[in-house]
């Protein structure tokens, strides 16, 4: 039973439900001393729920968490901290204007006889710790002056300093260069060698294969399998991650695509999260964008919509080159963008349906007055044609359901005469009935000859809706899948597997 002694953490039959979804379903999981246990899964497979349960932010509905031989029905943040569980975030939780050394030993600074902080001792201890972890940093540097990977290593050092036993790293390498990734992986291995148990969550299979002792695959809140070192290939992992029944999903009507007419985007870059992306969307086509969180899809839409400044990028609408440097100019060219976070960036919550619907049209129409009668009439038409359920057009949008809010955002863009429409996660947080209505509206728009870009992390939805799918990875296009090539397996293979 020597293994028993080395066990740091055991999760037994843990479940967690949210309204409408079983986010985590009777999962067993364990973690040994000195082990790197990787967790992989699609977006929405339950990884975030898992972390939140371990860090105490969420309480499991059932099951137990066993740490150091003691059983807990749930944790809370203070308890998790006390038990030595440390979640390493990319930037949070460091004091920007203190030095590296001060941050590492925060609250625990060595003092001299007068009870004041002994900086000499502090720097000495910090340097020793950083040396032992082979982190090359000036202990007297202000954290503010460090880049993200450096800040992350400071956090790891900080966690080591308080002798935490369990590290959780969630997508730690988003937007890192190869070199920075290798440094981080080295550091994680070093920590494991010192007896720490690491839970490592990542979309990037190369990293996972580089670092893992074991891999657990999650799918739709269920544990599919746990594999030991060198037991599986990346193909097998991908096969385990997919497997949702797509055939049961929404079947859309066909729209005729006019392949002769296109909107072309050439060489879009912002120097960081989007790197030289070129693609075309055709009249009547729904072009999908797949990729993991952090692959640069949302950043790309903001770039083509003129909301962020770009390094390069040319837009050609139906053969005509257009200059787009602001959302205003984009809207004038017929662009529309239904943003990912509709409450924060798609609508003004304290204003009415009418107000929100006419928001973009406001700038498109002539004159300085608002013709209230005419506007109300037009808004009512959109409310009717999109079947927005609201007691009146004066209703505050905050009081509408997610689905109806999304329809108001869509109405806003249709009213502004949009023909190139970007849907970023159009059905996130929307009930099933409204989802279908949004799909119907999208297909209807395609049939009317609009150009549609659809970003979604819901893979069955993407597969059901799209005519072609652009797979993005680390800010670049990994592959454009034609209709007959579209499959969950292909999308995953290109978005997480292989090398770039």
């Amino acid at each position, binding site marked *: 039973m020597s293994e028993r002694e080395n066990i740091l953490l055991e999760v037994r039959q843990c479940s967690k439900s949210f309204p409408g979804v079983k986010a985590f379903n009777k999962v067993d999981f364990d973690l040994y001393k000195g082990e790197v246990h990787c967790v992989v899964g699609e977006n929405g497979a339950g990884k975030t729920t898992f972390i939140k349960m371990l860090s105490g932010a969420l309480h499991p509905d059932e099951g137990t968490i066993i740490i150091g031989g003691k059983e807990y029905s749930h944790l809370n943040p203070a308890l998790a901290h006390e038990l030595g569980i440390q979640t390493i975030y990319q930037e949070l939780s460091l004091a920007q204007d203190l030095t590296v050394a001060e941050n590492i030993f925060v609250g625990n600074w060595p003092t001299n006889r007068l009870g004041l902080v002994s900086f000499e001792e502090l720097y000495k201890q910090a340097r020793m710790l950083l040396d032992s972890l082979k982190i090359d940093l000036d202990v007297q540097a202000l954290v503010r002056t460090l880049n993200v990977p450096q800040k992350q290593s400071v956090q790891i050092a900080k966690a080591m300093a308080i002798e935490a036993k369990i590290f959780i790293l969630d997508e730690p390498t988003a937007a890192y260069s190869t070199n920075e990734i290798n440094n981080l992986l080295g550091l994680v291995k070093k920590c494991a060698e010192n007896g720490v148990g690491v839970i490592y969550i990542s979309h990037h299979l190369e990293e996972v294969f580089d670092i893992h002792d074991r891999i657990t695959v999650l799918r739709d809140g269920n544990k599919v399998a746990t594999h030991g070192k060198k037991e599986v290939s990346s193909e097998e992992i991908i096969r385990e991650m997919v497997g949702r029944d797509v055939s049961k999903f929404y079947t859309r009507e066909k729209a005729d695509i006019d392949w002769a007419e296109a909107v072309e985007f050439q060489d879009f870059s912002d120097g960081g999260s989007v790197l030289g992306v070129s693609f075309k969307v055709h009249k009547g086509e729904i072009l999908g964008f797949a990729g993991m969180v952090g692959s640069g899809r949302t950043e790309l839409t903001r770039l083509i*919509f003129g*909301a962020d400044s770009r390094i390069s990028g040319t837009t050609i609408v139906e053969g005509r080159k257009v200059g787009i440097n*602001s*959302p*205003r100019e*984009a*809207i*004038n060219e017929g662009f529309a*963008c239904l*943003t990912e976070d509709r409450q*924060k*960036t*798609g*609508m*003004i*919550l*304290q*204003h*009415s349906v009418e*107000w929100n619907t006419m*928001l*973009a049209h*406001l*700038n*498109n129409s002539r*004159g*300085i*007055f*608002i013709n*209230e009668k005419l506007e109300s009439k037009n808004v009512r038409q959109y409310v009717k044609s999109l079947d927005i359920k609201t*007691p*009146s057009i*004066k*209703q*505050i949008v905050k*009081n509408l359901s997610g689905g109806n809010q999304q329809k108001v955002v869509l109405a*806003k863009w249709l009213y*502004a005469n949009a023909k190139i429409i970007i849907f970023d996660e159009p059905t996130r947080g929307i009930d099933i009935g409204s989802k279908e209505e949004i799909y119907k509206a999208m297909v209807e728009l395609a049939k009317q000859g609009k150009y549609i870009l659809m970003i979604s992390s819901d893979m069955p939805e993407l597969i059901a809706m799209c005519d072609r799918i652009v797979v993005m990875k680390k800010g670049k296009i990994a592959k454009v899948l034609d209709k007959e090539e579209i499959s969950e397996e292909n999308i995953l293979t290109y978005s997480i597997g292989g090398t770039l």
Partner: protein
Amino acid sequence: MKDALVRSKKVANWKNKGNKSVLYLLVIIICAIIVMSLLDPKFFTARNLLNILNQQSTLGIATIGVAIAMISGCIDLTVGNLLACTAAIAALLLNAEVGVVWVILLTCISGLAAGFVNGLIVVKTKIDTFIATLGLMSVYQGLALIIPGGNNIYLRGKLASFGTYRVAGQIPIPVFYFIIVAIIAYFVMRYFKFGRRLYSIGGNPETAFLAGINLDRNRIGAYAISGFLASFTSLIVISRIGQSQPAMGVAYPLEAIAAAVIGGVALSGGRGSIPGVFLGVILLGLIRNSLNILRVQSFYQYVMLGVVIVIAVTLSNLGSRKKV
């Protein structure tokens, strides 16, 4: 059942549209008037009520400008010292024998230009508007001393009727200015696209930006209006007191913000109405006037005024407050 639901939602909407604070204010004002009328018969006379309106007209006009900036999410602290600057400009022009119409025009243009510059500085530097206008406030304080060489400038009867004329021998003309400015501002904020844009920017700048609204241009516009109204106010003030003083108007920015907030304007922007602001200004005047009539010592008046402001804002925010 469903009808009742729809009706209750309609009421909720109506309240939500900022009318709620207008309603509360009206109730508070009526209560205050009733209480004061019972306490002292001198209070409820046409003469006294007109006096209150007249007293508040200058602060009122400046407050409307400040409120418009606030609705777009911007604080404007410059109005007081800017007002002293344009007062000095007007006084110097009058003493240089420039025609009255030209003086009025040039003063207002200088206020408009100063407001435009304020707006430009705020949007281009992207400093928090409170801090940026705090700095600018000091600049105008200096200019208000520099322009007239640190002196009071006497008008010697010029421009006197601009601020003291009584329509039909009864109603002081500044009351009309205040009401006319309020009505115009109401229409601009309610029926002009410009007004709608300001509300949208204040309500959610990111959404407004993505809907194609030019944030900078509209905010500069709001500051320009605020500057313009401050300069117009300065004309009334110098006409009344017969001179320009470098230190005049220093209390304006905070009083204006207080009046606007009492009137239901959100400090964070996007919420508030001109009728509300109008009533907020009236309420402040009413309180001050009441305290005078009740012969409360001026030292204590400040304390009372502060307490009343806090109570009034708390009442007018009732129900819309978040738990946290």
